[in-house]
């Protein structure tokens, strides 16, 4: 557990803030940290950069996080987990909503490994895109919105379904239903998925984040499509108490 100071905090999109801290972590895109606010709680966040998390306000913890200003402290541990592996020349990043941070990190840190990066990024409406400076690291951006307020009206998977043959590898992060759709479109091949499950320890002890025979915190969060074929991804997940629940 390490205390870090917030050196930059800004609103990146509606209900989405970015927090930059004074510690350059040695990380692999796709890896996450656990962030602790003493007295409040501790949650996992994908790293968007060595020193950056991008957070959507979704509950009590993030509400308190959103109150923090530059100069305030955050406690972190990590980075943890398995990150993305750069593969393919022309690749697609398929992001849904707040699934963007690890894909941003991938584009920025592995830019040189690819010939062409196409970002397909969907959100509900135009003010919900946390694009940061992603345009510097990708060659093409296709926005989709549920309400048609920006880009194509529809889902990122609509775009992927149409253009899938262009891409040698697809990297995806976002709502599980979307990622399941990506896997279906790609027939589980040439896909790397950043999965999410309820996470307690973050280090492979408690097993809360079970996904098939894997632990999201240790074996993931990034999985190859093939690994997920036999798992419940897109079908069910577990509550914090371990009971099965559907989406």
């Amino acid at each position, binding site marked *: *557990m390490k*205390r870090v100071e917030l050196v930059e905090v800004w609103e990146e999109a509606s209900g989405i803030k970015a927090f930059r801290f004074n510690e350059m972590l040695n990380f692999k895109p796709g890896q996450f940290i*656990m962030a*602790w606010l*003493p*007295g409040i*709680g*501790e*949650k996992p966040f994908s790293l968007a950069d060595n020193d950056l998390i991008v957070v959507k306000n979704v509950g009590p913890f993030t509400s308190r996080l959103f109150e923090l200003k530059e100069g305030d*402290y955050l*406690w972190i*541990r990590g980075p943890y987990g398995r990150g993305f592996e750069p593969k393919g020349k022309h690749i697609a990043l398929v992001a849904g909503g707040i699934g963007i941070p690890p894909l941003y990190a991938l584009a920025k840190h592995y830019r040189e490994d690819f010939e062409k990066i196409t970002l397909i990024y969907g959100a509900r409406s135009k003010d919900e895109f946390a694009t940061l400076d992603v345009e510097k690291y990708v060659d093409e951006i296709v926005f989709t919105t549920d309400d048609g307020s920006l880009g194509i009206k529809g889902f990122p998977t609509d775009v992927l379904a149409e253009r899938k043959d262009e891409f040698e590898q697809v990297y995806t992060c976002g709502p599980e239903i979307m990622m399941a759709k990506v896997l279906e479109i790609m027939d589980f091949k040439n896909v790397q998925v950043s999965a999410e499950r309820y996470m*307690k*320890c*973050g*280090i*492979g*002890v*408690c*097993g*809360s984040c*079970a996904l*098939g*025979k894997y*632990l999201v915190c*240790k074996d993931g969060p990034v999985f190859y499509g093939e690994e997920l074929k036999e798992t419940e991804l897109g079908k069910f997940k*577990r*509550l*914090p*108490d*371990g*009971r*099965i629940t559907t989406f």
Partner: protein
Amino acid sequence: MLSVEVAKLKLENPLMIASGVCDMTPDLLRRAHEEGAGAAVTKSIGIKPKKGYDNPTIVELPYGLINAMGLPNPGWEAFYEEFINEKFDFPIIVSIFGGDEKEFAFLAEKLSDVADAFELNLSCPHAKGYGMEIGQNPDMVYRVVRVVKDVTDKPVIAKLTPNIDNITKLGLAAERAGADAVSAINTLKAIAIDIYAKKPILSNKVGGYSGQGIKPIALRAVYDLAKALDIDIIGIGGITTWQDAVEFLMAGAKALQIGTAVSLRGFEVFGEINEGITRFLIDEGYNDVREIIGIALE
């Protein structure tokens, strides 16, 4: 060479995955077995679904972990429904916990069809015990084991706490009550404070300490128990390397549970430890792991 019989269960090798560690689902239990565990102990199951404590639930130390998960579990019904449809080709030891002997008996009765054996997690606060745990009171240990033995034919393992003046009195109570084995040790009472937050790190403030740092204490518990008891002893506590495993076997443990090391070294730890024990046995001229069990007690 590695097969053992412990608490009437036949195991391919003496290693088990410990309760509460990567054992939330049938798939994870199977993976532990595939990677080399001879048996698997499930997460501790109680009467009602329980989501456990809020995060932070774990503190990483250089030589172990402190955790306060709060016994998250789906409750016996959901657990039963999920496990009754599953087949396993290795023993499944179902860990159960309750607030008094009646709850233990109830759970053992309901879950006998999905259990090859039961491990009694006695770490719950004792309702009438002024903050004491059930497992810290030899009389309560006796009563819980007794009632569970009455309602099930499955072997019963009492998991003993080290937070006691003399663990053998707990072991003797379990033995008198008819336990088939004891497992030792559960975690040690501990805490960690963040000096910059000026607060305990865990949301529950205090927690249980596991991992390499408790190995010498766990080994002593096994050694003392093996001297005092006739029933089988399952060693737990910081077993991380094959050398640790051999120490526990020599101290009298017939089987071993691995927990924290799975987090540190991955599921591969089972295979590595089995290999190490085998190599040791061969190098030292033994034909069977049973030849070294308790050898250091003389």
